[in-house]
Structures are given as structure tokens and as C-alpha cells.
């Protein structure tokens, strides 16, 4: 069950005419108990896949919201082992929700990539996303992951050349993660027209599900991106921003987070319906 959960999830969503809603949480911010509550809230309110982030001291692909999340979590003493333990707990309570472990390369490197992937698998997660591991550096690990029936989720960006796109698409597993903008997480995606073109270009090159992330903070953006052809969207900083602003009691933010999760999911559904009802412009 472990190994095909992600494929089954995308297949099920396709059958139900829904785009996938991937929710990204840095675990342990500001404390483990809250993170578990947050993930529960997201799962109950429209998140289809959980990206469970292991905090890192120098998250170079993350903007200020996630940087602060990492700092708070690390200050609170969260370790990679605790994060993987949380993934296992989550697997027990949400048997159908695929889990992707997201972290920077030094964390698996120090643990030993082999060992790290064994832990990921034992925790019941489906794969890993390592933002500072481009395809060239990921290549030595792709076979290892495949043997363990785990996905290494690769990323593409608006700056990726056609040639690289082919190389990345050929190595992709699970889904392809398209970074929507030139920048870091939490940056506002101002206009969606440019990314729509990139979505179409990537979809033409690859049959694997395509998830778009970075800068997606509301249902409207999610809808536009799914309507353009993406199979889903990833949302992270937008959730963290809500509870980070309630420093006193982040639990108070959960209803608002639930509301946003609903809105994003609705965008994923409406986007796909819009795409289905728009006559193709090919003829």
C-alpha cells in the first residue's frame, strides 16, 4: 500500500474531477502538538497530500515566513527523527493521505541517504522533496529510491530550459513540482498568465502529474493554475502566515486555516471543471 498510495490518490482525484491540494507544513513550529493539530485541520478540510517539512537551519529556497518557521521549530528542539516519527503517527490516523518528506539535502546527507530513505519508508511516507537537489545531484540517488519504492519529487522552474525539462521529466517520479515564480516560497504570485504558459509547456513534455507551488495563497490562484492544466497546487507559507501572526495562541488560527484550506480545495475543483468545460483551442 505504501508504494502506490500517491498514484492511487492522483487517480482517485482524476476520477472525481478534482485537482490535488498539497499542503506544506514545517513540523514543530512553534511546537509539535500544534503541528499535529494543524495537519489534522488541513487533512479534514481539503488537503489531499501532506508535505511534511523537516526544518533546516539555512533554508535557501524559503522566504521569510518559512525561514521564521524553521527557526522557531529548531529553537524548540525539533529533530529529523521527531519529524519522521510524526509522519508515522500521521500515517496511522490518515491512512489514505500520501506524505512527502521535504527537507534540505544536508539533513539526509548527514544521516546517510540510504538510512534516511529507510526511515522515510518505515514511517509510511511516499517520497521526499529536496529543494536543493537538482536533477544532476539527484541522479545518483534515483535508483536507490526506486528500489525502496519511494519517489524523489523533482522540481522544474520557469527558468528551466527545454532540454533540462526533458531530462527532469524523464527522471520524475510521483509528480513533478513546478515552481511558479522566480524567487522563494511565500512570494506573492502576482499574475498567473506567465505560469499558465509554463504549465502547458510542461504538460506537453510529461505525462506525470504536475503540481504547482510557490506564491499560491488563495482559491482564485489555485483555480487559474488547475484550469491551465496543472493536476494540483501546493500551498505552505499562506497557512504558516496565518498562525505565525497569532503569536499568543496559534490554535486560535485553526478555523481561519480551515477556511483557507477549503477555499484552495474548492479552487482545485472549480479549476478542473473550468478546464473540462472550456472547448479546446486546438481546432
Amino acid at each position: 500500500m505504501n508504494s502506490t498510495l500517491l498514484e492511487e490518490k492522483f487517480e482517485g482525484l482524476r476520477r472525481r474531477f478534482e485537482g490535488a491540494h498539497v499542503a506544506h507544513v514545517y513540523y514543530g513550529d512553534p511546537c509539535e502538538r500544534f503541528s499535529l493539530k494543524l495537519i489534522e485541520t488541513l487533512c479534514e478540510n481539503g488537503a489531499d497530500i501532506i508535505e511534511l517539512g523537516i526544518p533546516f537551519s539555512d533554508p535557501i529556497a524559503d522566504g521569510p515566513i518559512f525561514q521564521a518557521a524553521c527557526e522557531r521549530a529548531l529553537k524548540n528542539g525539533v529533530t529529523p527523527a521527531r519529524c519522521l516519527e510524526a509522519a508515522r503517527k500521521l500515517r496511522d490516523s490518515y491512512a489514505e493521505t500520501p506524505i512527502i518528506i521535504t527537507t534540505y539535502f544536508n539533513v539526509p546527507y548527514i544521516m546517510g541517504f540510504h538510512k534516511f530513505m529507510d526511515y522515510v519508508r518505515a514511517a509510511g511516507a511516499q517520497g521526499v522533496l529536496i529543494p536543493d537537489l537538482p536533477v544532476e545531484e539527484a541522479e545518483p540517488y534515483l535508483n536507490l529510491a526506486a528500489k525502496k519504492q519511494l519517489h524523489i519529487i523533482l522540481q522544474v522552474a520557469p527558468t528551466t530550459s527545454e532540454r533540462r525539462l526533458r531530462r527532469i521529466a524523464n527522471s520524475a517520479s510521483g509528480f513533478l513540482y513546478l515552481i511558479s515564480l522566480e524567487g522563494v516560497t511565500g512570494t506573492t504570485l502576482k499574475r498567473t498568465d506567465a505560469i499558465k504558459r509554463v504549465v502547458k509547456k510542461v504538460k506537453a513534455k510529461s505525462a506525470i502529474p504536475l503540481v504547482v507551488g510557490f506564491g499560491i495563497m488563495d482559491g482564485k490562484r489555485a483555480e487559474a493554475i488547475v484550469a491551465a492544466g496543472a493536476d494540483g497546487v501546493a500551498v505552505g507559507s499562506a497557512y504558516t502566515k496565518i498562525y505565525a501572526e497569532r503569536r499568543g495562541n496559534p490554535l486560535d488560527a485553526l478555523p481561519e486555516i480551515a477556511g483557507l484550506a477549503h477555499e484552495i480545495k474548492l479552487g482545485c475543483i472549480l479549476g478542473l471543471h473550468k478546464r473540462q468545460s472550456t472547448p479546446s483551442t486546438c481546432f
Partner: protein
Amino acid sequence: MKRGRYGRYGGMYVGEVLVHALLELEEAFKRIYPTEEFQREFHGLLRDYGGRPTPLYYARNFSKLVGFKVYLKREDLLCGGSHKLNNALGQALLAKKMGKRRLITETAAGQHGLATVMAGNVCGLETEIFMGIKDVQRQASNVKKMVLLGAKVKPVKAGAGVLKDAVSETLREWAACSRTTHYLIGSTVGPHPFPEIVATFQSIIGEELRKQVLEKEGRLPDAIVACGSGGSNALGAFRPFIKEKSVRLYFVEGGGESRGAENSAAAFQLGSPGVLHGGLMMVLQDTWGQIRPSKTRAAGLNYPGRGPEISHLCEVGRVKPCYALDHEVFKAVRMMCRTEGLIPALETAHAVAYVLSNPDEFDPDDVVVINYSGRGDKDVETILRCERELNTP
């Protein structure tokens, strides 16, 4: 050797958004650097603007004190007061030829920031400099110079507000503007191709040094001593000698107050291989791979990573990794002031301190070259304050 690797170190561990910029830079460097036009312009600027060649000075009084011949390769005399301009001019010129309009970089001691805005102005490029908030306060005089020269200085509050955080912030900024902007990395760190580019531009130091020492001594030196964290001045001096097995190479890192994990920047003593800022290198980190902050009074050595090439050279035994503690460094400043009338930068004083504190490493008939990487005007306040602190029990 695999592209961008020095033994097991190096690589290109960055987000996909930045890969195109690194590939573009790699291609441009390969194509443009060897051309006669580039070489003429680069060496012309080094000579007429920078003041190269820098002299190789026989430090007679200092030699008498330590009991063997010591030469200083006077990078402190390069315009701007340190070796940093060699690389800044090279990269700014390259960026200009690549059609970039703007330079961004980070700086700790301020020397690299200063060199970057100078080179940016010469090449007609805008400059923006990221600097840890603590370094902005500590290096006020260099901040003023950078601003006067027209750079935008952006204080970085994230993390501990030091160099490591400024590098992360510059990489983030670059992700958003890499089509029009060049990240002018100041040391032999970061993702491929930066370590190679910086070392290539800095190796002018070693090339001159080789000729000069042959002229003066009729033979190669027995030892070259250089300070460093990322390793740019050291590699600049070492590179033409790496194959000369008779020349001993010493790399002196910031030992900080004491050789303990909380008080030091000595990554070769206290670190292990890890990935930071796009490259695999020796780095200070905890058992889970979280990067530890470094600590030393010398802002320019206050970085938790050692560049991939110097990491490799130390691992294979070609370069000896050494360190100097703060109290030895302040003593070295005094000694250099008294014997030769030169105020060394705190970074440079680490190399001086190693020579003073380890006489057993050198024979009486040795010819030793210290890469005298920078002058200490920027550090006068810190030196006087810290000496007071060290002397008050």
C-alpha cells in the same frame, strides 16, 4: 575529476530556479575568460586600477624575531586594502560581458563589499550588498565607504545576523533576479562554478609570488601561510604551488576564543563534510546536519564552511589545516605593528599568529611567505577594544 568537484567536495546543490544562472555563468566563463580581449582588460584593470603587481616584501625585523626568512605578499596594498579586488574586478567584467546590469553580493568584514562596489562602478554596474545586521554595526567604517561609493547596503536580520545569513539572503535575492543580476560571490564557496571562478581570478597572487620569490631567492619558498574561511586568498596564493611538493602549504582558520564548539570558527578542527550554500564542504554542524554558527573576532573568517577545494586539499594532506586563537591573533597584530610598522587585518593576523606561535614548524634556513591578505585600518577599534577586554581579568 567530475565537473564542479574537488574529490568528494563541491557540486551544485541549489534550487532549480538558480540552475540556469549557474549553467549560463559556467558557459560564459569558459567562453569569455580565455579570450585575449578579456585577459587584456582584466590584467589592465588589475595593473592600472588595482595597483598590481603587489610587492613581495622581505620582512627583515619580523624574520629576525622568528629566526627564519619571512616574506609578505602585500595584498594589503591592492586598491581597497585587501585581495578581494582581484576577484571582484574579474567577475564584474565577466558580468558586464554577459549583459548583466546589476551586482549583488554579501560581505562580513566589508572588504568584499567594498571591492564589489568599486568593481561595479568601474564596469558600470549597480551594486547591492547584503550584510548581517551584526556586521553592519561592527564594520561601520566600511559600510560608510560602501554607501559613499554608491552601493545599496541591505542589513540582514534573519538568523544570527552574520555572514552565513547574508549569504542565504543573497542566494534568495538572486533567485528572483538572476536574469539581469550577477551574484558576485567573494570567496571560493557556493555552488559550482563559483569556487573555480573565484580561485582562477585570485591565482594572480600565486603567479606573481612565484616569479618574485624566484627573483629574490632563486628558488621556490619552503612554506606559504595564508588565513581563510572560504579560502579565496589562500587558494589564490597556493594554486600555482599545489604540484610543487617541496612547498609546504598552511591554511590558518579562525580558532576564536578557544577550541570549543561554541567559541570557534575552526571548521577543519570541529566540523565535518556537509552541504551549505550550494556546495559540499567541511562545515560546522550538529549531529543532525543543522549548520552551527561560527565565532571569531575576525568578521572575514566568521563563516562555518570551508570551500570545496580547500576542503579537498586538506583532506588529501596537500594543505595543512591550522588555526590561531584570538589572543594569539591580537599578539600577532602588535608584533607586526612593532617590527614592520604594518597594521594587519585581523584575518591576516591569523596567518602571522600561526608563524609566531609555531616556530617548530619552520627551520632556520626556511623561506616562508605569508600571504598578507589585507590591512587592518577597518579593525583598529576592535583591536583596541578586544585588547582591553583580554587584559582585564
